[in-house]
Structure formats: C-alpha cells, structure tokens
C-alpha cells in the first residue's frame, strides 16, 4: 500500500495499468481524455502488455472492445458524455453477448447546449442497456471500483460502467491509497471469458439473427444475469474489504439508523451531503444520507431496508429525466418503496446540471424543505435545486 495524490482520471488510469488488460480501444473526449492519454503513456513505456487500439470514434471503441472481449481478451475503455452516447448502439450488444468489459466513464452532461461539465445524464442514458453501473464518491472509490469491476464483470459475464463526476473528481487531486501491482493482479485473477471466437477448432457463431421464436428467451436470460449480480457484487466487495480494508456495498448508509429524514444521492455529492448531515446532527437533527453506488443492478432490497421507517426522503438526481415527473433515481426509489408498508414521504430534486456547483447550503435547503413538510407545509413533489427562476 502506498499513499499518493491522484485525480480520479489518474486513479482510474493507474488501476488500468495494474489490471494490465489485454486490449484497450479508446477515443479521447473531455473530461476522460486524460485516462486514455495516461494509459497510452503506460503502453509506450512498456509498463503494460496491452494492445492499445486508438480508434476513430467511440462507436468503434465500443465495437472493437466487444470484438476483443468475444475473442477472449480482458478489455477496458474510457469515455464520457457524447462518447458514451455514440457508443449507445454497441452498448446494448455487449451485455446481450454476455461479454465482460469495464468502461471508466467520467460523468459529463449531454448536448445541447454543449457543456463539458458534470451531471449524470450520459450514464442515465444507458440505464437500460444491460451494463452494471457504479457511481463513485471520490478518487479512492474510483480506483477501488475499477479493480472490483474487473472481478464482478468476469463473474457475472456482464459489462460494467464505473463512473466518476466530471472535473469535481476527474480533475481534482486527492489522497488515495494504492495497492501494490501484485495485490491487484492477485485480486482480479486470471481472466474469465464465456467463449472465444479465436477457438478455430470449435467454431461458434456470435451475434446471430433472432426471430420471434428465440429473441424473448435470450433477453430473459440476459435479464436473469443482471438479477443475479447483487450477491456477486457484494461478495467481491466483501473480499476486497477483507483484504484491503475498504468496502462500499450496493448502497452506503450514513447516520441512517436513528434518522427520520434522509437524502438519497449518487456520486461526489454524497460526500458533501455527509458533511451537511454532520453539521445538522450537531444541532440535534435526525438526518442521514443514503449513497447509491450501484444504480444497475438496481439495489431494491437494500434501498427498501434502508428507507423503511424513515419519514421524509429527498432523492437527488443529477440528471433531468424529461419524463414530466421526476428523474430516474427518484422514480426508481419511489417505485421500490411501493412494496413496503411504512413508506416515507418522498420528494425529488433535480440538481447540479451542467456542472452547477452544489454547496453545503444547497443540501441544507433540501433538509429545510423536508422540515417544512414535517411541520405541515406543502412543497412540490419534484423540485429544482440551484436553478435561477
């Protein structure tokens, strides 16, 4: 173990170096460009054995990665925003072919208007594509999650996106504890592949045409694979915790046990929310935070267990769902709560779009809103935080 200063971009690139994937195919895009740049340097200096494919677009990055994974290689890439959106078509193919690939994604908003800063609309756009999605709070978690994701994807035979907030994390230097190269190699183990098109003696056909008689069955199988991921993620996370002392869970509860109000949030804002909770707790307020780390698979059971018994909950979406009623995290949480008896009163907040800063006082306002509700006042079910009227 060594203590170093790394931005999330650097931390993820270092994790990639230690993982030493067989193939990385990538195309630069702000703000994840650095990951690709740093990794190319590792390739140029011979610090990894990776075949680096500098493709001409993210569509081809995802395509080359999918081809490489189908050939039995351990494969990774990095991207952001429009790049992820351009990959969209391919991203539905990879999990259907049950190929383990890890994308280091830096969460940047989608055009238009064009903006390079943070929100989660890019990964939210991929929420039904069949990739696992892990959102991280800081550089350390970015680093740890990328390493964990390799194991998880190769046990689940499903790909995963590990995403970190643009600039707030991607370009912010932080103290992290890095594992030794051998520790990483030992943790991830030998690469596991479901099949390989390089086996010319046992030729298989990958990606055939499916008609009405089989498509549904194949999709059912893919869905089942996702349903089976929570215990895999927890097992890998626990083992990581036992060996290296850091564990994250599908969700993280912060001062929830005796709380009556909570914020549900993903990404770097979770850290700011914890600070706010500590301050409010000093004033005797019973508040807490639930950080959603795994958005896919959706951690329904963990969320319900954690929110059951709370009275007021605010769900924070760093994306606008454009559905006319709340954004993805809000609707998912709200839908999950339907099946528990003692449901909290739940409100949605859209915040931080296009990199809008989220200050402690903004999050305090959310708790203030919940307090108002507690005292009998009515507020909107879905709210916008930090936007000028």
């Amino acid at each position: 173990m060594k203590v170093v200063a790394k931005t999330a971009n650097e931390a993820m690139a270092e994790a990639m170096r230690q993982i030493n994937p067989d193939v990385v195919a990538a195309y630069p895009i702000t703000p994840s460009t650095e990951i690709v740049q740093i990794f190319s340097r590792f390739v140029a200096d011979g610090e990894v054995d990776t075949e680096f494919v500098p493709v001409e677009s993210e569509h081809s990055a995802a395509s080359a990665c999918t081809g490489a994974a189908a050939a039995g290689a351990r494969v990774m890439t990095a991207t952001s925003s429009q790049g992820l959106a351009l990959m969209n078509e391919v991203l539905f193919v990879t999990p259907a072919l049950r190929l383990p690939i890890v994308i280091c994604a830096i969460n940047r908003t989608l055009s238009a208007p064009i903006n390079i800063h943070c929100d989660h609309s890019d990964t939210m756009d991929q929420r039904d594509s069949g990739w696992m999605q892990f959102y991280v709070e800081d550089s350390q978690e970015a680093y740890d999650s990328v390493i964990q994701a390799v194991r998880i994807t190769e046990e689940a035979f499903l790909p995963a996106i590990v995403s970190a907030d643009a600039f707030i994390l991607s370009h912010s230097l932080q103290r992290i504890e890095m594992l030794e190269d051998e520790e990483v190699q030992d943790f991830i183990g030998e690469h596991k592949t479901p099949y390989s098109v390089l086996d010319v003696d046992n030729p298989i056909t990958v990606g055939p045409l499916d008609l009405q008689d089989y498509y549904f069955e194949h999709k059912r199988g893919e869905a089942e694979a996702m349903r089976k991921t929570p215990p895999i993620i927890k097992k890998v996370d626990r083992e990581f915790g036992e060996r290296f002392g850091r564990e994250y869970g599908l969700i993280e509860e912060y001062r929830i046990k005796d709380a009556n109000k909570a914020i549900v949030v993903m990404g770097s804002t979770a850290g700011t929310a914890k600070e706010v909770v500590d301050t409010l707790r000093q004033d005797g307020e019973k508040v807490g935070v639930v950080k959603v780390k795994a958005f896919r698979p959706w951690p329904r059971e963990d969320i319900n267990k954690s929110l059951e018994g709370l009275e007021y909950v605010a769900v924070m979406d760093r994306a606008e769902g454009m559905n006319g009623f709340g954004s993805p995290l809000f609707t998912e949480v709200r839908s999950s709560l339907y099946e528990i008896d003692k449901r909290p009163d739940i409100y949605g907040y859209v915040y931080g779009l296009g990199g809008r800063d989220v200050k402690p006082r903004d999050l305090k306002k959310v708790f203030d809103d919940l307090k108002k509700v507690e005292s009998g006042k009515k507020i909107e079910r879905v709210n916008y935080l930090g936007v000028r009227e």
Partner: protein
Amino acid sequence: MAINLKELSKQGDFLTSGHRACAGCGPAIALRQALLAAGKDTVVANATGCMEVVTTIFPYTAWKVPWIHSLFENAAATISGVEAAYKALKRKGKISKDINFIAFGGDGGTYDIGLQALSGTMERGHNILYICYDNEAYMNTGIQRSGATPYGAHTTTSPAGKKIPGKTQWRKDLTEIIAAHDIPYVAQATISEWRDYMGKVQKALSIKGPKFINVLAPCQLGWYYKSEDTIKIANLAFRTRFWPLYEVENGVHRITKEPKKAVPVEEWLKLQGRFRHLFKDENRKIIEKIQKRVDERWKRLKALEEAGL
C-alpha cells in the same frame, strides 16, 4: 498461388448448406469462394446485411468458422478488436495458431454507414482482410439506393419515374478511396472470375497489414434478372469493363484480368430489370452517358497501370 478446385473441394465448405439466401444469390457465392480460399483457420466478422441475416437464423448457422456479428456499421471495428485480442493473447503465449481475420460487409455496411469504421481500421494497420460484397444497393431492407448503386439504376429509393429516370448520381469509387489509405493491398474482383478472386483472397491473406477486396456480387432480386444468370451477369460486368479486375499493391495499380475485347455496356444493362427504363427512346442517351463514363474510367485505370502508379 494457383487455385485448384479439386484440391479445394477436399477441404469441405466453411459456408454450408441450409442458409436462407435467395436462389442464385451472388453474395453467398462471394462468401463461399472467399472462405474456400482462406481455409479453416479463419475468423469472420460480418456486418448486418443479407448475408448476416440468411446465414445465422437462430438456432442454425451456416458458418463452420468462428463468426461474429454485432452491428451494421462496425464490422471493421469489430474485427480490429478481435485482431487486437489475438495479438495480445499471442504475445502472452495464450494462443499460438496463425489465424486469418476477415470482415464481410455489403455495400451498405461498407461504402456508406460503415465507411468511417473501415477507414479507421485501414489507417490503423490491423492485420485483417475486409471483403465488401458489392451488390450495388441495400438489398437486405428491400433494394434501396446506396453509394454503390450505378448511375441510372432503379431502386426503391431511386425509382425510375415519369420525371426522374432512376439514380442520377454516379457510384462512388470505394476501391480507390480505400487505395488512397496507402495500405499494402487493395483489389477489385467479381465472382464469375473465381480464379482471379480467390487468388486475390489468398494473396491478400499472405500479406501483413490491412487489405481490402471489393467483389461484385450480383443480386437477382434487386437487379431483376433470372436466378440462373448471376454468374453470367457478374462476368458481363467484367467484360464490359464496367467492373475492371485489378489490384493496387503497395500503391501500384495492375489490371489482373483484361477482357480481350470490350463488350458494350448495353449488353450488361439489358439483362437487368433495374435498367429496363433506360431502353426507352427518351433515355437512350443515359446509356451513352454510362458507356462514356465506363470508357473514361477504364482509360484512367490503364493510364495508372502504364505509369506504374
């Protein structure tokens, strides 16, 4: 590298029976001949299109070599990933066999929607062979015009109407576009001249780096002719010089097979229903225009060859 059919017939087919292409399918012939030339240790990536559809209707596959399809425009990117994996795994000692990597795409997946991915793959220098089976329109979706559709042809999106006589643009010269990538080997072939075509496949596979073959593969459905005429029409495309057979090796053009005497392009056009409207009196000038273009292009090719370019 002489192609000996008797020898080849012993190894058996790698594109087998039971696929669901139309009777008389030119592209199926193009694929089958290519695989016979390439042999068993070959991995194929296929773009979405007729050939992908008809050969792999789950749970049946006509392929006896490993095959992967993911999308329409990314066959080149997909095979570059497969090839990159092969390189990495070979370096790490996890695989030792020599393997051919071939991508197949129709003209839709190659000339048009897949051109960017193809260009990138060629430029990056992957050790792969891309074969475009060119049937001059989007046949899989029902005969729509493509960048490969010849001038004057009727398709469902360039219909011969009362005012507009079929496609009013010239086809793009993809073979030359790919040759401009300055890769080691580019060739044009047709399925009737199988010895020339299969020889080019073998030659391409013997060369390291990115290779491209554009093989004309008539489509009886979209070109509107009788199914038994597929080879005849492929041959006429060559003999009229509409589709010259040549290669560009390390930047140098060479005509690989030359028709002794050029047949008028009209002879080729008249067998195909897609050009039927050109034979109306008011459209005869279009045939002249096409002939003029064919002559010019041939002259250009001859000049390139003679100049050693």
